[in-house]
């Protein structure tokens, strides 16, 4: 204990003592190998990510012209007459809106029921594994499934009827509905995780005020996990925007958006079209367009959109966000990036 007189004197700390460092060279061989493997893989992954962005940047910017964003694509073998990707851009916007419009409310509702009610337990388990199953189904399988379901004659109003009466099952509505299944597990997962992170005393506090469980959920719990829900939704949007198989099978991947019928808006939604992903596929050497420059430019735009969404997730789940939800973000990352 210092006395008052000593406290007046300026204090100088004794010399800083360094903590001894552990040398890797002293480790056993196996540990050292594993240690270096960790380094190499980590840096390797970084290199791949950088390469993707850089390559698309170089290739994409070289061919990117403002006119590409405002011109309709045209069927032409000559590159300068093949137009831009206005239709695919709009197509991406439409399917994403439809799909997330279905997946977000549905996913939140499923997650809320699972976390807050979940009775009977057997049903909850069934719902849980159903969500997992959907998450695991390859998107091309979902696409074929959609083809079967939506070519039923009574669902013809969602797409169009060919002259012989068969239903094509190809439209923005159909593609959006099936794409929603891609995003659904991500929304459910994010919402459940966020609900699980909420302290139990928040629920008790609300119950103790004479609020029912559903009021508690609606007025306290869901508002509290808004950042968690938002990050799930954005991750889901990333999945939707990036999918190609469902677009090719269920949207027709036509060069332009082809309306069906005469009702405004609905005619577009019932019609076929394409998105950036199918446009890239079509124009790549693998597809019939064989216009790699356009493919690079469109791929660059696609990448930018997805990176933007990713940045949004990071922001939504950054430490600046209050509440227990922020920890979730990093786990969601791990989930998506593997």
């Amino acid at each position, binding site marked *: 204990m210092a006395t*008052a007189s000593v406290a007046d004197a300026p204090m100088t700390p004794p010399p800083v003592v360094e903590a001894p460092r552990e040398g890797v060279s002293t480790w056993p061989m196996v540990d050292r190998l594993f240690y270096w493997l960790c380094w190499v893989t980590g840096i390797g992954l970084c290199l791949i990510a950088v390469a993707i962005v850089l390559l698309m940047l170089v290739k994409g910017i070289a061919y990117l012209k403002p006119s590409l964003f405002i011109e309709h694509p045209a069927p032409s073998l000559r590159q300068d007459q093949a137009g831009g990707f206005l239709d695919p851009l709009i197509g991406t916007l439409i399917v994403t809106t439809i799909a997330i419009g279905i997946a977000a409310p549905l996913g939140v509702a499923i997650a809320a029921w699972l976390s807050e009610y979940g009775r009977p337990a057997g049903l909850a388990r069934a719902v849980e594994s159903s969500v997992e199953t959907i998450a695991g189904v390859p998107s091309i399988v979902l696409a074929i499934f959609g083809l079967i379901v939506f070519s039923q004659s009574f669902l013809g109003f969602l797409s169009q009827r060919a002259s012989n009466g068969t239903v094509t099952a190809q439209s923005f509505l159909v593609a959006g509905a099936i794409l929603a299944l891609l995003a659904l597990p991500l929304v459910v997962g994010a919402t459940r995780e966020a609900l699980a992170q909420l302290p139990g*005393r*928040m629920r008790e506090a609300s119950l103790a*005020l*004479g609020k029912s469980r559903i009021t508690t959920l609606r007025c*306290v719990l869901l508002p509290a996990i808004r950042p968690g829900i938002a990050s799930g939704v954005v991750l889901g949007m990333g999945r939707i925007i990036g999918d190609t198989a469902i677009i090719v099978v269920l949207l027709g991947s036509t060069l332009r958006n082809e309306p069906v019928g005469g009702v405004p808006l609905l005619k577009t939604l019932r019609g076929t079209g394409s998105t950036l992903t199918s446009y890239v596929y079509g124009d790549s050497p693998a597809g019939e367009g064989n216009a790699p420059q356009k493919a690079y430019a469109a791929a660059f735009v696609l990448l930018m959109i997805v990176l933007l969404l990713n940045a949004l997730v990071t922001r939504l789940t950054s430490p600046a966000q209050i509440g227990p939800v922020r920890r979730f973000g990093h786990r969601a990352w791990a989930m998506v990036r593997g």
Partner: protein
Amino acid sequence: MTGDTLPPPVRRIATDREPTVVEGSRNGGADGPGAGLGGRAAVTRREPATVVRERMRAESLWLAYGENWVVRDVTLPVRQGEVLALIGASGSGKTTLLRSLNRLTEVTEGAARSGRITLDDQEIYELDVNDLRRRVSMVFQQPNPFPMTIFDNVAYALSEQRPPRGRRRRRTDEIERAVTDALKRAGLYDEVAGDLDRPALKLSGGQQQRLCIARALAANPEVLLLDEPCSALDPISTATIEDLIVSLRESVAIVIVTHNLQQAFRVADHVAFMHLGDLVEYGPREQVFGRPTHGRTRDYISGAFG
């Protein structure tokens, strides 16, 4: 640092008053029952409430979690106009007893009850559970404001004046007045009046707890249950809340669970001592602390166990 460079121990912080100093020689016990407990007691000693009326009653109450009977055959009145303190070691069942009074035990799976609990002579199982909890409100050990603004925290608790269909809850004058009133009753209004739209989680621990009390008071409950409301707080916040509890007992029947014997002595009018699920002793605080009739009570109060 030596002791004389520090300010003397202060009993309570009152900005408008000179700090009052606790004399070192006050532990003599010459001051009557419980004098060794809590120097503040002498300061907050107050007139008994004008009207004392029984509001709730537990009768031959047994409570269990699963196979385990954690409260055994307890009969206890809860009166408006006085504070009832439940004391006892951990695991004595006092918190369970408290939670059973507004049926919050039912949140836990496997909770069972036998015996009667009445609110104004009506069995609480016959009441709608949400109505009951509005009338018998509760404040928890950990301050648990919702992640909303201060205003919304209190407004949320207001008894359902349903907003007109299709419209969001708006800040009507009526709601505004009710919120302000609740904050004033909880002694928080002066500190937060400037900015009710601040997030509640930005408040200090003591302020958060008083916000929780304000929230609990907003619906005008008839009984207020407090589960160790000060155990997560510093002595200054504790003192504020204790004074608040004493001042509230005229309008609300108060039951407080506490591990802090000094606190029980300072705020309570009646004290119930529980041990391993049994109600060992119940009586006016002077009697329980001054002339306990049971050996166990005496041991607990003098710190022999617990």
